[in-house]
């Protein structure tokens, strides 16, 4: 557990489903070291293409008590990735230094076996380059010392207008990502398979404020001290009248 494990923490309470992370990912990785991300028939009737990141939409509950949940989905960089041991060539591997799961495009034979072994559907075969592709956590960007330090983050994280995506080392208990998981109920997808995804999700939260009637009239209510409303009825006893 001491080694670094970079990951994304995605806050479903904040995501508005704008797909900015999807387009930003496609833009950066289409021209970066992980590219191209080819499209087939992009302007035709039946377009198709390679994406590392998607935003899906789910409806929870039954009308009228429903919530719409936007759910960004990319490779989870599992701590025990089932896609890696099945690869016959060793093209699919997990980096020891930072836990990123990558595909070596020069070794991949395109047998698709790794995609069968991923329960999350995180891998896509690129129809043009004929190799398996997936999220790289923008490995060609996060270590690039030519970029300002603030820009050394995945393209999806940079693009998110609501800061729903946190990026960090989840093995470092002091990182923002670890703290968010720990303090905001972060969870992993499909825990039943024991893949230990590194990426975590933060759940929807409902903020409820509960005000008791006496809190409005009690002696330490600043409104009361300043003589403003709410006031107790003239004949009502207040806490101060209780006598000590």
């Amino acid at each position: 557990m001491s080694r670094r494990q970079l990951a994304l923490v995605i806050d479903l309470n904040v995501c508005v489903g704008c797909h900015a992370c999807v387009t930003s990912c496609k833009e950066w990785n289409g021209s970066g070291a992980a590219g191209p991300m080819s499209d087939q028939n992009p302007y035709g009737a039946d377009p198709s293409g390679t994406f590392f990141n998607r935003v899906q939409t789910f409806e929870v509950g039954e009308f009228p008590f429903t919530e719409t949940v936007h759910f960004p989905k990319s490779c989870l960089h599992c701590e025990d990735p089932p896609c890696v041991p099945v690869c016959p060539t060793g093209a699919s591997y997990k980096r020891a230094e930072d836990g990123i799961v990558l595909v070596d495009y020069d070794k991949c034979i395109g047998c698709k076996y790794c995609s069968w072994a991923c329960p999350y559907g995180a891998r896509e075969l690129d129809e043009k380059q004929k190799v398996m592709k997936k999220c790289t956590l923008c490995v060609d960007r996060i270590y690039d010392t030519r970029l300002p330090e603030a820009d050394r983050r995945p393209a999806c994280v940079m693009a998110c207008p609501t800061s729903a995506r946190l990026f960090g080392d989840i093995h470092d208990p002091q990182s923002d990502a670890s703290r968010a998981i720990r303090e905001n109920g972060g969870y992993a997808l499909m825990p039943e398979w024991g893949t230990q995804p590194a990426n975590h999700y933060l759940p929807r939260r409902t903020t409820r404020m509960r005000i008791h009637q006496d809190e409005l009239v009690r002696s330490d209510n600043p409104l009361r001290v300043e003589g403003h409303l709410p006031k107790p009825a003239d004949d009502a006893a207040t806490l101060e009248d209780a006598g000590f």
Partner: protein
Amino acid sequence: MHPAVSVILLTTLIGAGQGLLLALFTVQSYTLVGLLPAAEGPVFYVTGSVIALALLVAGLVASFFHLSRPERAWRSAAQWRTSWLSREVIVLPAFMAAVALYGLLHAVGGGPVLLQASAGLAIDASLAVGAVASVLAFALFVCTGMIYACLRFLAEWHTPLTPLNYTLMGGASGFTLAAALAAWLEPQRVGELAAWAIVLTVLAAVGRLASLWRNARLKPRSTTQSAIGIKHPVVVQRSMGFMGGSFNTREFFHGARPGQLRAVRQVFIVLAFVVPLVLLALGRPAASAPLLLAAFGVQYVGLLAERWFFFAQARHPQNLYYQAVS
């Protein structure tokens, strides 16, 4: 899952080739201990080995069509420590070499005698190579089956029945083919081979029906709730995030209607098991080459349907993320 023609052909063709080699070695072992009369010549073994090799080569060629980058196929032997696919890639050529050597040794009269056990019980090189090839045939069945059985997310495949059924169905088709070959070349050997073919076809039917019975009772461990981690009884996808196709929508969905799936299941039960059993039972006493060849042909077509169903029936948990376009 989307059944790939290349993989259907690969697994059925090499299965028949493996079964045929096992049948040849069985005949040779029976002959050695005097259960069968001595062969009139090497024609049966040589022809059988050539046919087995042809089936294996055809399967290997089919497998290349599954690869997006076939020119790099040589790399796939690298990860034999962890990957069953890599192990299959190593065992298949080794088995093909053993089959080729087996046929070659028979063509030259059995090769040098390695061990003279007793009078008339000579263990020659062809028998030793046949034993090695038989072990490799079983190893290949295990590798092929485990490629699917080791994927724990695909519950329909994740059972010991998968490698067992690959072995039984490959063995059944190989022994049926061997019986047809014997009816043509050495009719005195049809009885034993056809009897084995009947036994293996019955066992294969039992194994496959057992896996159908098991799979019909599976309850998926992953749900839409666990897929996105929201614990509410009603969670429905409204959009998968795109309106065009993608690898995820093509590779993991068979696209057939439930009725078609059920029809293919009935067809393969009849063609792979019932009809071949009838034809084997009819063709065995008369040593009828046409009937036994028809048994193999029908069984092979049935196994093609069986393999299509095997892939189509597996429900991949990733499909939970691709339920609704918009």
